Protein backbone atom coordinates (compact mmCIF):
# COMPACT_ATOMS: atom_id res chain seq x y z
CA UNK A 1 0.00 0.00 0.00
CA UNK A 2 2.62 2.53 1.05
CA UNK A 3 5.01 1.00 -1.45
CA UNK A 4 2.39 1.71 -4.10
CA UNK A 5 1.97 5.36 -2.96
CA UNK A 6 5.71 5.92 -3.11
CA UNK A 7 5.96 4.09 -6.42
CA UNK A 8 3.39 6.44 -7.96
CA UNK A 9 5.09 9.55 -6.58
CA UNK A 10 8.51 8.50 -7.82
CA UNK A 11 7.25 7.48 -11.24
CA UNK A 12 5.45 10.81 -11.68
CA UNK A 13 8.60 12.65 -10.68
CA UNK A 14 10.67 10.73 -13.27
CA UNK A 15 8.28 12.05 -15.90
CA UNK A 16 7.91 15.62 -14.59
CA UNK A 17 11.69 15.95 -14.30
CA UNK A 18 12.06 14.55 -17.84
CA UNK A 19 14.56 11.90 -16.68
CA UNK A 20 12.25 9.19 -17.96
CA UNK A 21 11.98 10.68 -21.44
CA UNK A 22 15.74 11.17 -21.65
CA UNK A 23 16.36 7.56 -20.68
CA UNK A 24 13.76 6.15 -23.04
CA UNK A 25 14.93 8.16 -26.04
CA UNK A 26 18.67 7.77 -25.48
CA UNK A 27 18.50 4.08 -24.70
CA UNK A 28 16.20 3.45 -27.65
CA UNK A 29 18.40 5.32 -30.11
CA UNK A 30 21.70 3.89 -28.86
CA UNK A 31 20.60 0.28 -28.54
CA UNK A 32 18.92 0.13 -31.95
CA UNK A 33 21.63 2.31 -33.50
CA UNK A 34 24.42 0.06 -32.22
CA UNK A 35 22.62 -3.03 -33.50
CA UNK A 36 22.53 -1.67 -37.04
CA UNK A 37 26.10 -0.32 -37.04
CA UNK A 38 28.71 -2.01 -34.86
CA UNK A 39 26.35 -4.88 -34.12
CA UNK A 40 26.41 -5.87 -37.80
CA UNK A 41 22.72 -6.68 -37.69
CA UNK A 42 22.62 -7.12 -41.47
CA UNK A 43 25.76 -9.18 -41.89
CA UNK A 44 25.10 -11.94 -39.37
CA UNK A 45 21.39 -12.23 -39.98
CA UNK A 46 21.29 -12.64 -36.22
CA UNK A 47 17.64 -13.50 -35.80
CA UNK A 48 17.88 -14.11 -32.04
CA UNK A 49 19.36 -10.59 -31.72
CA UNK A 50 21.82 -12.08 -29.24
CA UNK A 51 25.03 -10.54 -30.55
CA UNK A 52 23.81 -7.64 -32.65
CA UNK A 53 21.35 -6.11 -30.21
CA UNK A 54 21.47 -7.53 -26.69
CA UNK A 55 25.24 -7.76 -26.47
CA UNK A 56 25.48 -3.97 -26.07
CA UNK A 57 22.90 -3.66 -23.32
CA UNK A 58 25.10 -4.12 -20.23
CA UNK A 59 27.51 -1.55 -21.67
CA UNK A 60 24.73 1.01 -22.06
CA UNK A 61 23.04 0.12 -18.79
CA UNK A 62 26.18 0.37 -16.67
CA UNK A 63 26.16 4.12 -17.38
CA UNK A 64 22.50 4.93 -17.94
CA UNK A 65 21.01 2.96 -15.02
CA UNK A 66 23.09 4.75 -12.33
CA UNK A 67 22.27 8.06 -14.03
CA UNK A 68 18.60 7.46 -13.34
CA UNK A 69 19.08 6.25 -9.80
CA UNK A 70 21.85 8.57 -8.55
CA UNK A 71 19.36 10.96 -6.97
CA UNK A 72 17.26 8.19 -5.39
CA UNK A 73 18.50 8.76 -1.82
CA UNK A 74 21.08 11.51 -2.19
CA UNK A 75 18.31 13.95 -3.09
CA UNK A 76 16.25 12.78 -0.17
CA UNK A 77 19.18 13.55 2.17
CA UNK A 78 20.05 16.85 0.52
CA UNK A 79 16.55 18.32 0.64
CA UNK A 80 15.78 16.80 4.05
CA UNK A 81 12.64 15.02 2.84
CA UNK A 82 14.09 11.85 4.37
CA UNK A 83 12.94 13.42 7.65
CA UNK A 84 9.35 13.41 6.38
CA UNK A 85 9.58 9.81 5.21
CA UNK A 86 11.26 8.78 8.44
CA UNK A 87 8.49 10.21 10.61
CA UNK A 88 5.53 8.93 8.60
CA UNK A 89 3.93 5.70 9.79
CA UNK A 90 5.65 3.60 7.13
CA UNK A 91 8.64 1.32 7.21
CA UNK A 92 11.80 2.38 5.39
CA UNK A 93 11.62 -0.95 3.59
CA UNK A 94 8.44 -0.03 1.76
CA UNK A 95 9.99 3.29 0.73
CA UNK A 96 13.07 1.51 -0.61
CA UNK A 97 10.96 -0.95 -2.59
CA UNK A 98 8.65 1.75 -3.92
CA UNK A 99 11.58 3.77 -5.21
CA UNK A 100 13.32 0.72 -6.66
CA UNK A 101 10.20 -0.49 -8.49
CA UNK A 102 9.55 2.98 -9.90
CA UNK A 103 13.03 3.19 -11.43
CA UNK A 104 12.72 -0.39 -12.70
CA UNK A 105 9.41 0.50 -14.31
CA UNK A 106 10.97 3.40 -16.22
CA UNK A 107 13.47 0.91 -17.63
CA UNK A 108 10.74 -1.57 -18.45
CA UNK A 109 9.18 1.12 -20.62
CA UNK A 110 12.54 1.95 -22.20
CA UNK A 111 13.17 -1.71 -23.04
CA UNK A 112 9.63 -2.24 -24.32
CA UNK A 113 9.97 0.72 -26.66
CA UNK A 114 12.80 -0.96 -28.56
CA UNK A 115 10.12 -3.28 -30.00
CA UNK A 116 10.58 -2.05 -33.61
CA UNK A 117 13.70 -4.18 -33.82
CA UNK A 118 11.70 -7.27 -32.85
CA UNK A 119 9.11 -6.41 -35.48
CA UNK A 120 11.92 -6.04 -38.05
CA UNK A 121 13.46 -9.46 -37.41
CA UNK A 122 10.04 -11.06 -37.54
CA UNK A 123 9.37 -9.33 -40.81
CA UNK A 124 12.76 -10.20 -42.29
CA UNK A 125 12.87 -13.80 -41.17
CA UNK A 126 11.56 -16.34 -38.77
CA UNK A 127 13.24 -15.81 -35.39
CA UNK A 128 12.70 -17.74 -32.19
CA UNK A 129 10.61 -15.25 -30.28
CA UNK A 130 11.07 -17.09 -26.99
CA UNK A 131 14.82 -16.51 -27.26
CA UNK A 132 14.22 -12.84 -27.91
CA UNK A 133 11.89 -12.63 -24.93
CA UNK A 134 14.44 -14.31 -22.73
CA UNK A 135 17.02 -11.81 -23.98
CA UNK A 136 14.79 -8.96 -22.88
CA UNK A 137 14.30 -10.66 -19.55
CA UNK A 138 18.07 -10.92 -19.13
CA UNK A 139 18.48 -7.30 -20.06
CA UNK A 140 15.85 -6.21 -17.57
CA UNK A 141 17.33 -8.18 -14.71
CA UNK A 142 20.83 -6.82 -15.42
CA UNK A 143 19.26 -3.38 -15.35
CA UNK A 144 17.53 -4.06 -12.03
CA UNK A 145 20.85 -5.25 -10.59
CA UNK A 146 22.56 -2.01 -11.61
CA UNK A 147 19.65 0.01 -10.22
CA UNK A 148 19.88 -1.79 -6.87
CA UNK A 149 23.63 -1.17 -6.75
CA UNK A 150 23.23 2.54 -7.37
CA UNK A 151 20.39 2.70 -4.87
CA UNK A 152 22.82 1.40 -2.25
CA UNK A 153 25.57 3.80 -3.31
CA UNK A 154 23.25 6.81 -3.31
CA UNK A 155 22.20 6.01 0.26
CA UNK A 156 25.76 6.70 1.36
CA UNK A 157 26.10 10.25 0.11
CA UNK A 158 24.14 13.43 -0.35
CA UNK A 159 26.23 14.27 -3.40
CA UNK A 160 24.68 13.00 -6.63
CA UNK A 161 27.90 13.26 -8.63
CA UNK A 162 29.78 11.08 -6.16
CA UNK A 163 26.89 8.62 -6.22
CA UNK A 164 26.99 8.50 -10.01
CA UNK A 165 30.75 8.02 -10.31
CA UNK A 166 30.96 5.30 -7.68
CA UNK A 167 27.97 3.38 -9.04
CA UNK A 168 29.24 3.53 -12.61
CA UNK A 169 32.62 2.27 -11.40
CA UNK A 170 31.05 -0.72 -9.64
CA UNK A 171 28.78 -1.54 -12.59
CA UNK A 172 31.77 -1.15 -14.92
CA UNK A 173 33.76 -3.71 -12.94
CA UNK A 174 30.84 -6.15 -12.85
CA UNK A 175 30.36 -5.75 -16.58
CA UNK A 176 33.98 -5.92 -17.66
CA UNK A 177 35.19 -8.72 -15.43
CA UNK A 178 33.05 -11.15 -17.43
CA UNK A 179 33.32 -9.69 -20.93
CA UNK A 180 34.93 -11.83 -23.69
CA UNK A 181 38.07 -9.78 -24.42
CA UNK A 182 38.96 -9.66 -20.72
CA UNK A 183 38.22 -13.35 -20.19
CA UNK A 184 40.37 -14.26 -23.19
CA UNK A 185 43.21 -12.17 -21.88
CA UNK A 186 43.03 -13.84 -18.47
CA UNK A 187 42.77 -17.30 -20.05
CA UNK A 188 46.14 -16.76 -21.70
CA UNK A 189 47.93 -15.99 -18.45
CA UNK A 190 45.80 -17.07 -15.50
CA UNK A 191 44.46 -20.36 -14.24
CA UNK A 192 41.15 -21.91 -15.19
CA UNK A 193 39.78 -21.18 -11.74
CA UNK A 194 40.39 -17.46 -12.16
CA UNK A 195 38.61 -17.54 -15.49
CA UNK A 196 35.69 -19.35 -13.92
CA UNK A 197 35.57 -17.04 -10.99
CA UNK A 198 35.61 -13.92 -13.15
CA UNK A 199 32.89 -15.10 -15.48
CA UNK A 200 30.72 -16.14 -12.53
CA UNK A 201 31.19 -12.79 -10.82
CA UNK A 202 30.65 -10.68 -13.92
CA UNK A 203 27.21 -10.16 -15.37
CA UNK A 204 28.08 -11.10 -18.97
CA UNK A 205 28.16 -14.89 -18.83
CA UNK A 206 24.81 -14.94 -17.03
CA UNK A 207 23.39 -12.37 -19.38
CA UNK A 208 24.58 -14.06 -22.58
CA UNK A 209 22.96 -17.33 -21.51
CA UNK A 210 19.67 -15.47 -21.27
CA UNK A 211 20.07 -13.95 -24.72
CA UNK A 212 20.46 -17.49 -26.08
CA UNK A 213 17.24 -18.54 -24.43
CA UNK A 214 18.86 -20.22 -21.43
CA UNK A 215 17.58 -18.99 -18.10
CA UNK A 216 19.57 -20.98 -15.58
CA UNK A 217 18.93 -21.22 -11.86
CA UNK A 218 22.47 -20.18 -10.79
CA UNK A 219 22.13 -17.03 -12.89
CA UNK A 220 18.79 -16.22 -11.31
CA UNK A 221 20.28 -16.74 -7.87
CA UNK A 222 23.21 -14.52 -8.81
CA UNK A 223 21.02 -11.62 -9.94
CA UNK A 224 18.29 -11.87 -7.34
CA UNK A 225 20.88 -12.37 -4.60
CA UNK A 226 22.78 -9.29 -5.68
CA UNK A 227 19.59 -7.21 -5.84
CA UNK A 228 18.43 -8.36 -2.40
CA UNK A 229 21.81 -7.72 -0.82
CA UNK A 230 21.87 -4.19 -2.24
CA UNK A 231 18.33 -3.36 -1.15
CA UNK A 232 18.81 -4.75 2.35
CA UNK A 233 22.13 -2.88 2.43
CA UNK A 234 20.32 0.34 1.50
CA UNK A 235 18.06 -0.16 4.50
CA UNK A 236 21.01 -0.72 6.84
CA UNK A 237 22.90 2.31 5.53
CA UNK A 238 19.87 4.57 5.88
CA UNK A 239 19.40 3.34 9.42
CA UNK A 240 23.01 3.71 10.48
CA UNK A 241 23.21 7.24 9.15
CA UNK A 242 20.73 8.40 11.74
CA UNK A 243 22.41 6.79 14.72
Amino acid at each position, binding site marked *: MNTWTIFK*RELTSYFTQLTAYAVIVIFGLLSVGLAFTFGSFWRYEDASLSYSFFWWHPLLLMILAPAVTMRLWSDEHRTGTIELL*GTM*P*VSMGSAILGKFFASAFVWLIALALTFPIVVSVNWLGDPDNWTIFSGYLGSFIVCCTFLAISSLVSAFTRDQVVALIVSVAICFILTFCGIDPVINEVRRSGSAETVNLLSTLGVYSHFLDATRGLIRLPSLIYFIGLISVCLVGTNLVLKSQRA
Partner: protein
Amino acid sequence: MIEVKDLKKQFGQKVAVDNLSFSVKKGEVLGFLGPNGAGKSTTMRMVTGFLPVTAGEIEICGISMIGSPTEAKRKIGYLPESAPLYNDMTVRGFLRFCASMQGLKGAARATAVDEAIETCFLESVASQSIDTLSKGYRHRTCLAQSLLHNPEVLVLDEPTDGLDPNQKSEVRKLIKRLGEDRAILFSTHILEEVSAACTRAVIVDQGNIVADGTPDELEKQGGGSLSELFRKVTSQESPAA
Protein backbone atom coordinates in the same frame (compact mmCIF):
# COMPACT_ATOMS: atom_id res chain seq x y z
CA MET B 1 0.33 12.57 25.79
CA ILE B 2 4.02 13.13 25.18
CA GLU B 3 6.07 11.50 27.92
CA VAL B 4 9.83 11.84 27.69
CA LYS B 5 12.05 10.29 30.33
CA ASP B 6 15.82 10.62 30.70
CA LEU B 7 16.28 11.17 27.00
CA LYS B 8 19.88 11.15 25.84
CA LYS B 9 21.48 11.55 22.44
CA GLN B 10 25.13 11.25 21.66
CA PHE B 11 26.72 11.92 18.27
CA GLY B 12 30.08 10.20 18.56
CA GLN B 13 31.68 11.83 21.59
CA LYS B 14 29.38 14.82 21.52
CA VAL B 15 26.38 14.80 23.84
CA ALA B 16 23.59 16.74 22.13
CA VAL B 17 20.78 15.92 24.55
CA ASP B 18 21.48 14.92 28.12
CA ASN B 19 18.93 13.30 30.45
CA LEU B 20 16.03 15.37 29.30
CA SER B 21 12.62 14.66 30.87
CA PHE B 22 9.35 16.45 30.26
CA SER B 23 5.73 15.72 29.53
CA VAL B 24 3.01 17.44 27.56
CA LYS B 25 -0.59 16.68 28.41
CA LYS B 26 -3.71 17.05 26.34
CA GLY B 27 -4.66 20.72 26.11
CA GLU B 28 -1.11 21.88 26.73
CA VAL B 29 1.17 23.84 24.44
CA LEU B 30 4.78 23.48 25.50
CA GLY B 31 7.21 26.07 24.21
CA PHE B 32 10.75 24.85 23.69
CA LEU B 33 13.32 27.63 24.04
CA GLY B 34 17.07 27.64 23.97
CA PRO B 35 20.12 29.02 22.19
CA ASN B 36 21.32 27.67 18.86
CA GLY B 37 22.72 24.17 19.21
CA ALA B 38 20.94 23.58 22.53
CA GLY B 39 19.47 20.31 21.29
CA LYS B 40 15.89 21.36 20.55
CA SER B 41 15.70 19.93 17.05
CA THR B 42 17.56 16.80 18.08
CA THR B 43 15.02 16.21 20.86
CA MET B 44 12.13 16.69 18.45
CA ARG B 45 13.69 14.32 15.93
CA MET B 46 13.85 11.65 18.61
CA VAL B 47 10.31 12.34 19.82
CA THR B 48 9.01 11.93 16.26
CA GLY B 49 10.98 8.73 15.75
CA PHE B 50 13.35 10.01 13.10
CA LEU B 51 16.52 9.66 15.18
CA PRO B 52 17.10 6.59 17.34
CA VAL B 53 17.72 7.47 20.99
CA THR B 54 21.00 6.73 22.77
CA ALA B 55 19.10 6.15 26.02
CA GLY B 56 15.75 7.00 27.54
CA GLU B 57 12.03 6.50 27.03
CA ILE B 58 9.52 8.20 24.75
CA GLU B 59 5.80 7.55 24.94
CA ILE B 60 3.21 9.08 22.62
CA CYS B 61 -0.38 8.61 23.84
CA GLY B 62 0.84 5.67 25.88
CA ILE B 63 2.60 4.01 22.93
CA SER B 64 6.34 3.60 23.13
CA MET B 65 8.17 5.23 20.23
CA ILE B 66 11.02 2.81 20.71
CA GLY B 67 8.94 -0.35 21.01
CA SER B 68 6.28 0.23 18.34
CA PRO B 69 7.39 3.20 16.22
CA THR B 70 4.83 2.81 13.41
CA GLU B 71 1.81 3.01 15.75
CA ALA B 72 3.34 5.90 17.69
CA LYS B 73 4.17 7.85 14.51
CA ARG B 74 0.53 7.63 13.43
CA LYS B 75 -0.37 9.91 16.37
CA ILE B 76 2.10 12.65 15.48
CA GLY B 77 2.09 15.53 13.06
CA TYR B 78 5.60 16.88 12.52
CA LEU B 79 6.98 20.03 10.96
CA PRO B 80 10.75 19.59 10.54
CA GLU B 81 13.04 22.57 11.02
CA SER B 82 14.00 23.07 7.38
CA ALA B 83 10.44 22.50 6.07
CA PRO B 84 11.54 19.89 3.53
CA LEU B 85 9.31 19.32 0.50
CA TYR B 86 9.36 17.42 -2.79
CA ASN B 87 10.13 20.24 -5.18
CA ASP B 88 8.81 18.59 -8.30
CA MET B 89 5.24 18.36 -7.00
CA THR B 90 2.42 20.87 -6.75
CA VAL B 91 1.20 21.94 -3.32
CA ARG B 92 -1.98 19.92 -3.67
CA GLY B 93 -0.17 16.92 -5.12
CA PHE B 94 2.30 16.95 -2.25
CA LEU B 95 -0.45 17.14 0.37
CA ARG B 96 -2.34 14.35 -1.36
CA PHE B 97 0.79 12.20 -1.29
CA CYS B 98 1.37 12.86 2.41
CA ALA B 99 -2.29 12.10 3.18
CA SER B 100 -2.00 8.74 1.42
CA MET B 101 1.14 7.99 3.37
CA GLN B 102 -0.82 8.68 6.55
CA GLY B 103 -3.32 6.06 5.44
CA LEU B 104 -6.11 8.36 4.20
CA LYS B 105 -8.06 7.34 1.10
CA GLY B 106 -10.75 8.59 -1.25
CA ALA B 107 -13.17 11.21 0.06
CA ALA B 108 -11.52 11.38 3.48
CA ARG B 109 -8.23 12.24 1.80
CA ALA B 110 -9.80 14.93 -0.38
CA THR B 111 -11.46 16.57 2.63
CA ALA B 112 -8.27 16.39 4.69
CA VAL B 113 -6.27 18.05 1.90
CA ASP B 114 -8.86 20.79 1.37
CA GLU B 115 -9.05 21.51 5.10
CA ALA B 116 -5.28 21.71 5.46
CA ILE B 117 -5.09 24.07 2.48
CA GLU B 118 -7.72 26.28 4.04
CA THR B 119 -6.20 26.26 7.53
CA CYS B 120 -2.78 27.26 6.24
CA PHE B 121 -4.05 29.82 3.70
CA LEU B 122 -2.69 28.01 0.68
CA GLU B 123 -5.65 28.39 -1.70
CA SER B 124 -3.82 30.83 -3.96
CA VAL B 125 -0.88 28.49 -4.56
CA ALA B 126 -2.63 25.11 -4.36
CA SER B 127 -1.84 24.14 -7.93
CA GLN B 128 1.55 25.86 -8.10
CA SER B 129 4.74 23.86 -8.35
CA ILE B 130 6.57 23.78 -5.01
CA ASP B 131 9.95 24.85 -6.43
CA THR B 132 8.43 28.22 -7.39
CA LEU B 133 7.01 28.98 -3.92
CA SER B 134 8.37 31.71 -1.66
CA LYS B 135 9.94 30.69 1.63
CA GLY B 136 6.91 31.51 3.74
CA TYR B 137 4.60 29.50 1.51
CA ARG B 138 7.00 26.57 1.59
CA HIS B 139 6.89 26.69 5.36
CA ARG B 140 3.10 26.82 5.38
CA THR B 141 2.87 23.90 2.96
CA CYS B 142 4.98 21.82 5.27
CA LEU B 143 2.88 22.92 8.24
CA ALA B 144 -0.26 21.88 6.33
CA GLN B 145 1.31 18.46 5.83
CA SER B 146 1.57 17.99 9.60
CA LEU B 147 -2.16 18.66 10.13
CA LEU B 148 -3.55 16.33 7.46
CA HIS B 149 -4.36 13.29 9.58
CA ASN B 150 -5.70 15.39 12.46
CA PRO B 151 -3.03 14.11 14.86
CA GLU B 152 -3.41 14.15 18.61
CA VAL B 153 0.18 15.27 19.06
CA LEU B 154 1.89 18.05 17.12
CA VAL B 155 5.63 18.58 17.07
CA LEU B 156 6.54 21.83 15.33
CA ASP B 157 10.14 22.92 14.93
CA GLU B 158 10.16 26.70 14.57
CA PRO B 159 6.71 26.93 12.95
CA THR B 160 6.83 30.70 12.54
CA ASP B 161 10.29 30.88 11.01
CA GLY B 162 10.28 32.83 7.76
CA LEU B 163 6.67 33.98 7.98
CA ASP B 164 5.51 37.57 7.59
CA PRO B 165 4.10 39.34 10.69
CA ASN B 166 0.49 38.66 9.68
CA GLN B 167 1.16 34.99 9.15
CA LYS B 168 3.16 34.76 12.37
CA SER B 169 0.17 35.91 14.35
CA GLU B 170 -2.14 33.62 12.35
CA VAL B 171 0.06 30.63 13.09
CA ARG B 172 0.24 31.55 16.79
CA LYS B 173 -3.53 31.70 16.89
CA LEU B 174 -3.68 28.39 15.05
CA ILE B 175 -1.32 26.76 17.56
CA LYS B 176 -3.36 28.11 20.43
CA ARG B 177 -6.62 26.89 18.91
CA LEU B 178 -5.24 23.44 18.01
CA GLY B 179 -3.70 23.15 21.45
CA GLU B 180 -7.07 23.15 23.16
CA ASP B 181 -7.67 19.47 22.45
CA ARG B 182 -4.20 18.29 21.54
CA ALA B 183 -0.69 18.14 22.91
CA ILE B 184 1.69 20.48 21.14
CA LEU B 185 5.45 20.77 21.45
CA PHE B 186 6.94 23.65 19.53
CA SER B 187 10.28 25.37 19.46
CA THR B 188 10.91 29.02 18.81
CA HIS B 189 13.47 31.80 19.13
CA ILE B 190 10.82 34.49 19.51
CA LEU B 191 10.18 34.98 23.21
CA GLU B 192 6.91 36.89 22.72
CA GLU B 193 5.47 33.74 21.23
CA VAL B 194 5.73 32.08 24.60
CA SER B 195 3.18 34.30 26.26
CA ALA B 196 1.12 34.47 23.06
CA ALA B 197 0.71 30.75 22.47
CA CYS B 198 2.14 28.57 25.22
CA THR B 199 0.60 27.23 28.38
CA ARG B 200 4.05 26.19 29.58
CA ALA B 201 7.63 26.67 28.47
CA VAL B 202 11.02 25.10 29.08
CA ILE B 203 14.41 26.56 28.37
CA VAL B 204 17.01 24.08 27.18
CA ASP B 205 20.74 24.69 27.26
CA GLN B 206 23.45 22.26 26.18
CA GLY B 207 21.01 19.39 26.25
CA ASN B 208 19.61 20.11 29.73
CA ILE B 209 16.42 21.77 30.92
CA VAL B 210 17.45 24.90 32.85
CA ALA B 211 14.04 26.50 33.42
CA ASP B 212 10.51 25.20 33.39
CA GLY B 213 7.16 26.84 34.15
CA THR B 214 4.17 28.77 32.90
CA PRO B 215 4.96 31.99 31.01
CA ASP B 216 4.02 34.03 34.09
CA GLU B 217 6.23 32.03 36.43
CA LEU B 218 9.16 32.27 34.06
CA GLU B 219 8.73 36.03 33.75
CA LYS B 220 8.71 36.33 37.50
CA GLN B 221 11.92 34.28 37.75
CA GLY B 222 13.53 36.65 35.27
CA GLY B 223 12.48 39.69 37.26
CA GLY B 224 9.63 40.62 34.95
CA SER B 225 11.17 39.78 31.62
CA LEU B 226 11.60 36.49 29.82
CA SER B 227 14.67 37.60 27.92
CA GLU B 228 16.43 38.45 31.20
CA LEU B 229 15.81 34.92 32.40
CA PHE B 230 16.91 33.50 29.07
CA ARG B 231 20.21 35.38 29.26
CA LYS B 232 20.70 34.39 32.86
CA VAL B 233 20.18 30.63 32.54
CA THR B 234 21.76 29.93 29.17
CA SER B 235 25.49 29.96 28.58
CA GLN B 236 26.54 32.98 26.53
CA GLU B 237 28.89 30.95 24.46
CA SER B 238 26.92 28.46 22.45
CA PRO B 239 28.91 25.32 21.69
CA ALA B 240 30.55 25.22 18.29
CA ALA B 241 28.01 23.69 15.95
